[in-house]
């Protein structure tokens, strides 16, 4: 059973490390069932492993985008509407920008959107779900109503409408809009989870031990929802990445940002189909699919962490 060891145990701290290690492996074991470390489980699942590798690739590309991109993605010093050439692997845009550089830098945008919107909507969902589930009573009634409202309000039209009402168009707007439309599902799941957790004896016991509500939520409840939160985060991030691309494709994105969605939008407007610039049109779509696929694949593993039914599926 491979438990990822805490970084570099120094000999002098050996005993303590051992304890810590035991403790952590316990934590992980719990979190994921009676299992070896979470990473090991994810890694052993073949789908998930592939997903992790792809994602790692994207993260690296995004991190080193400035180094990897051969040119400034917005520099339009090149001949326009080129097909793939040695200098421009995926050709140039109608404005003479290097498509490959845009693709590389676009990875950054997608990951940032995924991360930020995922975090934001997870956070909002968590706070609202937790409050509703824990407080109960009329607070719950109101928040549940909000959650249900958030669930029935159609997301894309709302995104489009919100994007239209806002005075500025930027990546953060997109992130905001996606979070606003994406929190409800997570909130509902977290609410129902917390409702089952709330009535657990150990929560009542914590109250008998004199702990306050905030502490109970933070220390007793949230740690038990970790896998739920992670799955929720992945789902939200995935939706956000797709959402950003869709909005950008509709022309509701931030044209100053290079993203795969804006690339597709511009490829579509810029006549990539007529000029036969296949690479320009296909590349952003495929990379987008690949990134989303990686998330989906990882989700298989994460689902398996919390749902033993899925674990046997290989």
């Amino acid at each position, binding site marked *: 059973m491979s438990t990822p060891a805490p970084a570099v145990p120094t000999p002098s701290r050996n005993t303590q490390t051992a304890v810590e290690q035991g403790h952590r492996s316990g934590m992980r074991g719990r979190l994921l069932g009676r299992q070896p470390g979470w990473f090991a489980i994810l890694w052993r699942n073949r*789908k998930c492993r592939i997903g992790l590798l792809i994602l790692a690739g994207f993260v690296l590309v995004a991190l080193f985008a400035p180094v990897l991109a051969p040119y400034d993605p917005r520099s339009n010093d090149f001949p326009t509407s080129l097909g793939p050439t040695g200098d421009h692997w995926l050709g140039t845009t109608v404005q003479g920008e290097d498509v490959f550089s845009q693709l590389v830098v676009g990875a950054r945008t997608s990951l940032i959107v995924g991360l930020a919107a995922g975090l934001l909507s997870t956070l909002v969902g968590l706070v609202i779900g937790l409050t509703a589930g824990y407080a109960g009573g009329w607070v719950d009634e109101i928040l549940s*109503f909000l959650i*249900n*409202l958030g*669930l*029935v*309000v*159609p997301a*894309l*039209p*709302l995104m*489009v*409408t919100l*994007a*239209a*009402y806002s005075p500025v168009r930027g990546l953060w707007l997109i992130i905001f809009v996606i979070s606003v439309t994406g929190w409800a599902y997570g909130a509902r799941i977290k609410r129902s989870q917390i409702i089952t957790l709330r009535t657990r004896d150990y929560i009542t016991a914590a109250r008998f031990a004199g702990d306050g509500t905030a502490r109970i939520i933070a220390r007793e409840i949230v740690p038990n929802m970790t896998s739920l939160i992670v799955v929720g985060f992945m789902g939200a991030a995935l939706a956000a990445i*797709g959402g950003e*691309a*869709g909005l950008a*494709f*509709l*022309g*509701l994105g931030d044209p100053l940002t290079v993203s795969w969605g804006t690339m*597709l939008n511009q490829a*579509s407007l810029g006549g990539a*189909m007529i000029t036969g610039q296949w690479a320009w*049109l296909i590349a952003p*779509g495929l990379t*987008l*699919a690949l990134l*989303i*696929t990686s998330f*989906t*694949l990882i989700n298989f593993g994460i689902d398996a962490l919390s749902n033993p*039914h*899925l674990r*046997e*599926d*290989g």
Partner: protein
Amino acid sequence: MAYFARRFAFFLATLWAAVTLNFLIPRLQPGDPAEAIVSRIGGKGQAVDPAQLEAVRTMLGAPGGNLFEQYVRYLGAVFSGDFGVSYSYFPYSVTHMIGEALPWTLVLVGVTQILSFVIGTLLGTWAAYRRNTRVDSVITLGSTFVGTLPFFWIALLLIYVFAITLRWFPERGGYGGGSSPGWNWLFISDAFQHSVLPGLALLITGPIGWIIGMRNNMVQSLGEDHARLAVARGLPERRIAITYGARIAILPNVTGFAIALGSILGGTVLVETVFNYPGMGRLLLESVSNKDFPLMQAIFLFTTIGVLIANFLADILYGFLDPRVRKAENS
């Protein structure tokens, strides 16, 4: 009964919230509807003539009175189906425009949604029935991969391949210029031809969610004791798969399906945009890019109400389908 009463109360409350939000959002927005209309009428870059502005404002019956009075008037108007005049289709009313776009969306998206659900449920059932076999892997993995392809991108490719290169189907629009909308065979076949590609685009990605959901639910319910007992009782495999697996597994999908059906009203912005399909989605996007607030609001309200009604009906249906629900609600 209590269950339905509760659902109905929720329905009314949400409806009210949606209508009110719709009232408030544009009012938080700076700017003057009359000005928006004038700048639409006059075209871009034209300096606005104050006299014209005033005339339009009078014509629109620009909002007067305090917020509450406006609100009451607005509620009255909404419930009598009067959403005002569309800026981008002036002088046509919002209701008229929605009436034009709705049938297209209803047919295209409605049919594909239902088909997606049916196909997805069948495939999901099949995968669960043959779980952990090759059929299962092909269905699950295949749909996972296809499901991640960007939707609009598939649409673009479809256009390129089938409309532009092969010229099998028209590349865009809901019908051709030659036919005239109506209940004649020419028009219907024309409209059908036009709907093939957008329908296909929707059908490629549509069933995925249902497949995965159905499969996982069913694997779960087949693992439960009552299904195992059914095996012990010597029931035929098929009967178990249907009554003890699919019959239960489909329940959680019903609400999702209802929401999907309800959101038909909003159209599918991306596909309709790519295919220039004259439905609600494109109307919405257009109203957005033209800042046609009355139209935008109305479409949004429509969509929300659609989902709400569908949701409400689904809840009721669910109450019949799943005897456990009413009980659960009560406790």
